[in-house]
């Protein structure tokens, strides 16, 4: 990109200004935090420079308070076990209710959340989740491509650590309960990462 890295480093600080002034302080700290995470991620994901930039997400109410931390952090379930489409399709996909029931017909059936889930299942209607990570409709982001680049066709990459790759854009979900948007996911965010990891610069890769 034409903009020099020096400028970018400035830019990073500027991005504080992007957020609402009232929140700028919080943003700043979360920024530091995210930098730390990024640093951590860099350690785990070989030949990849994670994208930079932060966003202070709002709490999105969900029909079921799905605890990512319990599933990923505590029980160490791989992201792609539930978001199974991610490596085959452009969308990662919300796991089908049947998949949840696969375990939760036995596991933790007494918990209120699971009870709620079971209701949905018996009523034969899937829960309506609220979208947290959204991009404009003229952006055609492909999960498959990015997973191939950073995980499957990335030698020295352990698929078990895939959550670190997800963290590039989704933040450290394994520490969250309900997912929350902590990355800007705007074009600058994407482009910078594409520059650093020599991704394609062809507009039609994402816009069509």
């Amino acid at each position, binding site marked *: *990109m*034409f903009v020099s890295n020096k400028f970018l480093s400035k830019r990073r600080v500027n991005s504080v200004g992007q957020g609402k002034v009232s929140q700028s302080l919080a943003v700043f700290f979360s920024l530091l935090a995210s930098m730390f995470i990024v640093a951590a991620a860099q350690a785990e994901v070989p030949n990849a420079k994670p994208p930079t930039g932060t966003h202070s997400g709002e709490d999105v109410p969900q029909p079921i308070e799905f605890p990512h931390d319990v599933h990923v952090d505590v029980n160490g379930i791989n992201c792609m076990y539930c978001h199974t489409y991610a490596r*085959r399709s452009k969308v990662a996909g919300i796991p089908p209710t049947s998949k949840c029931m696969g375990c939760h017909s036995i596991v933790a059936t007494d918990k209120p959340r699971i009870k709620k889930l079971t209701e949905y299942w018996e009523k034969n209607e899937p829960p309506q989740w609220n979208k947290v990570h959204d991009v*404009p*409709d*003229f952006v*055609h982001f*492909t999960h*498959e*491509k990015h997973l*191939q680049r950073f995980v499957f066709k990335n030698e020295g990459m352990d698929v078990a650590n895939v959550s670190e790759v997800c963290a590039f854009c989704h933040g450290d979900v394994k520490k969250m309960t309900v997912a929350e948007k902590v990355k800007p996911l705007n074009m600058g965010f994407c*482009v910078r990462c594409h520059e650093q990891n020599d991704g394609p*610069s*062809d*507009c*039609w890769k994402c*816009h*069509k």
Partner: protein
Amino acid sequence: MSLKNILENWSHYRQTIEDGGHYEYEHMWGMAIDLNKCTGCNACSVACYAENNLPTVGKDRMRKGQGMHWLRMERYWDEPEMGGEEKEYQERGGSFLPMMCQQCNAATCEPVCPVAATYHTPDGLNAQVYNRCIGSRYCSNNCPYRLRYFNFYSYYEESWPEPLNMQLNPDLSVRDKGVMEKCTFCIQRIRTGKDKASREDRTVQDGDIVTACAQTCPTEAIVFGDLLDQKSQVTKLWKAQQVELGKTKQDKANTELRGYRVLEGLNTDPCVMYMDRVREA
């Protein structure tokens, strides 16, 4: 596109084949259209409407010339000097010419766009980025084929009443007012085909990717493929007709061959080759 792209790549995107410019490309998508086979049945055009989320604009706007037919089937009657004038009837029927974006290599629309919303892709395609377009309409003015269409209204508001909108193709955008658009050689299909190939760890084979018009053509008059792939059918056709990219005038060994490119004398270097229609004397 980034300034780097403009400064560094553009020049070689526009190199002609003598300069080996095309070998920089991943692909060079092209077409060969046999007007001897083309019956002018218009199926390609409707298929294009179905594939590319083209709105129907209604009688009045269509008559005003505000329609969105990316692929238009042109019909010409014989010229007077071809024995049309003094004869009482059109003895040789009509001449049909399916016109979709010619994906010129020296596209005249590209240099004039103030915001570089249209540019040349590494696939040899002539891209139009809707969300970058500001609607100066300069590109359309500068297209000698008049193959760029403009959203004069927010057509989506009336074009797809429930549940017609369920037919919309999620692989590409629905355009709002003030945006220029044109045939993309079904970029979404190209993308899908390439993704599939890479998923299976292979290169794209001839026939993996077919545009909507080529696929639906009942007479298979439209052939789509990669001009860099020496084995592809379209390349064979171009070779057989002794038509080459990067020429303003084809020097053919056999001058009787039918292959030609529309208005190639303008040095737009289009990627679509046509083959003359044939009539019994």
